[in-house]
């Protein structure tokens, strides 16, 4: 069998269990694809020796008939996850050389499920960015291309998106604080799900905004997302916000039927200046779900407009607090000091050298909104608006809506460098459709649904009820089948 790296998780799993292929063959195919794809800059710390060792162990388990759900399946891990003995830098200079002595709960869960780690994936620094241009490792390139420009894979999980879309790995982990799984998934024609807040343990994932951060899988299909999400989720006493709830069999949930269920179409997501193609795709998606037997209703989420401004208070505020730990004392970079420099100079120089401009900007905005005199006007007001945003969703779910359909992004992938001179707020607008979901703690999934006129992928987002990822995946599976998206980027790298 050729091109094993192009398999889905589900097909590779079945082939492994049927002894048609081995995990070592599969892993070697991926490692060779990774080696040939340096131009994408997706993988930044390769772990081929570890991968082959894990693949051999997986083959032994498969031979014994003791194969857990992800046994022998090669995946990539976002650099935000701490992986024992393997560089984990959150794509930041301030964590240069950091090799954790421990493994994040999510990556440990994946190891326990038998997955093989090919290496660490590029991302925006500290997951702050929407284009993967803030990484200390340099920009990630989208495998999709329509002319001689290099396009962004989106961000912050841009390395994960690019790697999965280019078949360097079968799937990858991502994290999503304001859209960082769903936006890059949409830009690269793959599937990405952010589960309900509390489903995945945050322990061992470098923190950005703790009340918003969630890990999730980025995969080639909805079925793969179901398989991998189930392996990632668990109750974890080491994360006090991790929920003590059984993890359902998400793959089994795909078999259900959406007949008679209700889909809401929020009028506030029809934005001024939205490209016609996105509007058209959204209507087509609505028709597809209707054809599958869903009832479609118009709904209103009146505070949508205020989600992004609330996010840009809450996320930087939490970041300024979380990132206070990078002080040059316990790990990572410490600046060279001059004669007479004390500890304050050490902090200030270390942080100025170690953090990139976007991270510095967000830390300082966070510091400002939390400072005496502004705390109520900004931070508390934003948290009140967050309560209202969550209530908007609760109200429509109480009216009988089962899931909500929206566009995933306001545009297709743009060129790297294109937003260089724009003010930071222009970049923030990328997350306009995804950020509400983080503020409300809900599960959201991006499903590739079509190509624009240029031939670039576009995604639709489905938003589900809290802890109803199974039902959400069922809707996504229905949409995926109806949309029949099979396009792949033409290989140029």
């Amino acid at each position, binding site marked *: 069998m050729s091109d094993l790296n192009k398999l889905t998780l589900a097909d590779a799993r079945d082939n492994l269990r049927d002894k048609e292929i081995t995990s070592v063959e599969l892993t070697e195919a991926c490692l060779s694809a990774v080696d040939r794809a340096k131009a994408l800059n997706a993988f930044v710390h390769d772990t081929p020796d570890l991968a082959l060792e894990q693949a051999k162990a997986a083959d032994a388990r498969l031979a014994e008939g003791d194969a857990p759900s992800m046994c022998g399946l090669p995946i990539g891990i976002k650099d935000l996850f701490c992986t024992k003995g393997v560089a984990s830098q959150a794509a930041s200079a301030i964590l240069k050389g950091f090799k954790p002595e421990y493994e994040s709960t999510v990556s440990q869960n994946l190891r326990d499920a038998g997955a093989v780690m090919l290496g660490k994936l590029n991302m925006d620094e500290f997951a702050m960015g929407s284009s993967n241009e803030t990484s200390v490792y340099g920009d990630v390139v989208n495998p999709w291309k329509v002319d001689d420009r290099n396009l962004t894979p989106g961000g912050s999980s841009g390395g994960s998106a690019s790697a999965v879309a280019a078949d360097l790995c079968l799937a990858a982990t991502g994290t999503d604080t304001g859209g960082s799984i769903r936006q890059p998934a949409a830009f690269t024609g793959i599937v990405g799900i952010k589960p309900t807040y509390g489903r995945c343990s945050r322990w061992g994932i470098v923190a950005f905004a703790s009340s918003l951060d969630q890990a999730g899988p980025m995969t080639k299909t909805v079925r793969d997302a179901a398989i991998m999400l189930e392996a990632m989720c668990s109750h974890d006493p080491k994360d006090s916000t991790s929920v003590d709830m059984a993890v359902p069999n998400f793959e089994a949930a795909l078999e259900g039927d959406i007949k008679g269920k209700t889909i809401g179409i929020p009028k506030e997501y029809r934005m001024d200046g939205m490209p016609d193609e996105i509007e058209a795709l959204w209507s087509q998606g609505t028709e597809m779900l209707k054809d599958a037997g869903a009832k479609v209703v118009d709904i209103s989420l009146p505070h949508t407009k*205020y989600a*992004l401004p609330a996010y840009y208070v809450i996320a930087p505020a939490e970041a300024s607090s979380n990132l206070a730990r990078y002080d040059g004392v316990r790990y*990572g970079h410490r600046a060279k000091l001059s004669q007479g420099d004390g500890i304050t100079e050490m902090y200030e120089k270390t942080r100025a050298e170690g953090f990139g401009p976007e991270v510095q900007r967000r830390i*300082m905005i966070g510091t400002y909104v939390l*400072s005496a005199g502004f705390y109520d006007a*900004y931070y508390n007001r934003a*948290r009140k608006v967050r309560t209202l945003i969550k209530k908007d969703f609760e109200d429509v779910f109480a009216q009988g809506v089962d899931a909500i359909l929206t566009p995933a992004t306001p545009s297709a992938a743009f060129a790297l460098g294109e937003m260089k001179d724009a003010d930071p*707020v222009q970049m923030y607008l990328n997350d306009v459709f995804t950020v509400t979901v983080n503020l409300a703690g809900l599960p959201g999934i991006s499903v590739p649904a079509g190509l624009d006129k240029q031939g670039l992928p576009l995604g639709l987002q489905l938003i589900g009820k809290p802890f109803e990822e199974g039902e959400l995946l069922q809707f996504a599976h229905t949409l995926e089948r109806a949309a029949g998206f099979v396009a792949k980027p033409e290989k140029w790298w």
Partner: protein
Amino acid sequence: MSIDITTAAKVAKLARIKVEDDALPSLAEEFNAILGFIEQLEEVDVDGVEPMTSVTPQRLKRREDVVTDGDQQEKVLSNAPDAREGFFAVPKVVE
């Protein structure tokens, strides 16, 4: 609300990030663009609304107040830029 150069310098100091004087005007300008965007929140009627503390309804769990981890000095220090004799080393803080 508009941020001037003095305020930008104060925020940088509070955040413990060294910003050179010549970089302050553009920093202040960026802050103003972001804060201008954030100020839309003033349009929202938030009277009587509780600020969100937890997005999921659950209460934070409690656990026994016992030691669950420790005795890992070497591992704790293994990534330190400067560790000596079992401690993190920093510039002199007390005269």
